[in-house]
């Protein structure tokens, strides 16, 4: 199956543009219990994001980035510290802050349309907001695939459906856990551009976990670098450049070198 057409960014779908929210992570530490032993994963994480900001979280594999996103999403409670989104403490999942995983995790038994409908239906607002489903699918360029089943989609299309399934709820905070990590490099490039487009038009706050420094620099205006497990914040970089950005722009290349240095790779 071919990849879908480029995004219609100027689409008349403005009901999906609700703006962003602030994120405050205060002295958060977290441990898991693994067969009796304690495994400290996060150690005194302290950072915040402004409404509408696009922040990238970089760090070595296994340091605790996914765990941090799960905590912010409210799937788990931190062992210590506090997390607030929009000024309110996080104590359970809420469709105003949605986590998109590396695996699209679409429900294989449900059609694309039913997958995208899930959030509206679960909250009991499907009747009033049914129109959004079509809008969200159009937004990710999959209007023609509403009745397809997940196994009929390519990896890139499946991840687009996962994005539509999140955006249909008009989240104020989008948590992206290596959402492009498993895609081939060309699909990845396309979706990076699309992600910026969606963020610019919808105005949500975005926290993107990635292990790709270049991806972080193409998308985010701030980059937070974590240490090895247990994760601490090693460094933060501001990169306020206009979009679209180019991977070989001199300032991007220079910043890339600095970040790799902070990650412990001398270049």
């Amino acid at each position, binding site marked *: 199956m071919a990849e879908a057409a480029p995004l219609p960014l100027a689409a008349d779908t403005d009901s999906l543009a609700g703006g962003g929210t602030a994120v405050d992570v205060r002295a958060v530490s977290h441990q898991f219990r693994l067969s009796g032993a304690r495994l400290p994963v996060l150690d005194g994480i302290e950072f915040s994001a402004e409404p509408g900001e696009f922040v990238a979280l970089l760090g070595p594999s296994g340091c605790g980035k996914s765990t941090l996103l799960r905590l912010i999403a409210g799937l788990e409670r931190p062992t210590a510290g506090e997390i607030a989104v929009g000024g309110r403490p996080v104590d359970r999942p809420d469709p105003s802050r949605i*986590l998109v995983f590396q695996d699209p995790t679409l429900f294989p038994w*449900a059609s694309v349309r039913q997958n995208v409908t899930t959030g509206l239906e679960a909250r009991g607002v499907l009747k009033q907001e049914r129109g959004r489903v079509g809008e969200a699918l159009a937004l990710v360029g999959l209007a023609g695939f509403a009745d397809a*089943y997940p196994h*009929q989609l390519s990896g890139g299309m499946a991840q687009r459906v996962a994005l539509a399934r999140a955006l249909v709820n008009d989240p104020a905070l989008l948590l992206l856990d290596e959402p492009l990590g498993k895609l081939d490099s060309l699909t990845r490039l396309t979706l990076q551009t699309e992600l910026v487009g969606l963020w610019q038009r919808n105005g949500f706050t975005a926290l993107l976990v990635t292990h790709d420094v270049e991806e972080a620099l193409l998308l985010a205006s701030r980059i937070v670098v974590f240490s090895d497990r247990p994760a601490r914040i090693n460094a933060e970089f501001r990169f306020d450049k206009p979009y679209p950005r180019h991977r070989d722009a001199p300032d991007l290349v220079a910043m890339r070198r600095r970040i790799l240095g902070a990650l412990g790779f001398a270049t």
Partner: protein
Amino acid sequence: MTDAAQTFDDLAIADPTSTFGGIWRSGVLAALSWAAAALITVGLPDVVPWGSAKLFAGLTAGAAAVFLVLSFVVQRLGRAGEVLRHYGPWFVAVGVWLALWELATAKFGWLPKPFFSPPHGILNVYVTDGPRLLLCIVYTLRLWSLGFLSGIVVGYGAGVALGWSKPFAYWGMPLLKLIGPVPATAWIPVTFYFFPTTFGASIFIVALASGIPVAILTASGVGSVSRAYYDVGRILGARSWYLIRRVAIPAAMPHVFVGLFMALYYSFAVLVVAEMLGAKYGLGWYIQFQTAYSGYANVYAAIIIMAVLCAGIVRLLFVVRDRLLRWQEGFI
């Protein structure tokens, strides 16, 4: 015609499903074998008369005529013709089998009455005992559907509860694991004591046999749903009830169908046993009743009906499964 095409044609002659000079070979052979069965049935006298010999000969001769016509027109029948051609060798074999069966039983008496019956003896049962057999079919289907449906409904509900709820699993799973392996027929003596009517007891036995595999497989299906799906549901604002309905239940569906197929076979097995114990009608009862009077032709006749019924029900469940599990990879 090229050489390659020529070779291909030669090969095709060796293939029994093929046609030769526009004539369907297996069709002609089937016509011959069925005609032979008809001739043997009317041409030779029965050692001991069985009845309905002429009717059977007429039916097989009719079939032979149909095969003969089909031999010439089968190519023009499209999809149905393809199916017919696929089963061509089977049609031939059944005709041969009927002819040999006639010879070995009614005509030469190698396989003696009453333990063996020629095909027209079985046909005679349907002719002479039709109404009673029909009644038995109705009784059997009533017992089976009541028992099977109540069994799978209760088993499914219990399975969802056991797979979903920790307290249910804590108290229920050990019981299910202990009781589950006991053959349902072992309960027969006690259930007939506990239930006021035989019919109630029979329904319970069939329900027990069908309910337990469905409960076990449903529980394991619901219990093995990937946590990632629940995480997605919770993130999108779903509460428990929604997660059960829209995540746990559809995700467990492939397991549930394995349980349903097991339930079908178990239910058939106990159905007959249950009917042999004090039922008034039903195919199981019929078999037992006729055995007592050495009516083995009647027993074969009932077994054939049962085979057709059970195979039909299994087929039906396959159709339902293929429709409901369309979403699984490889189904489309």
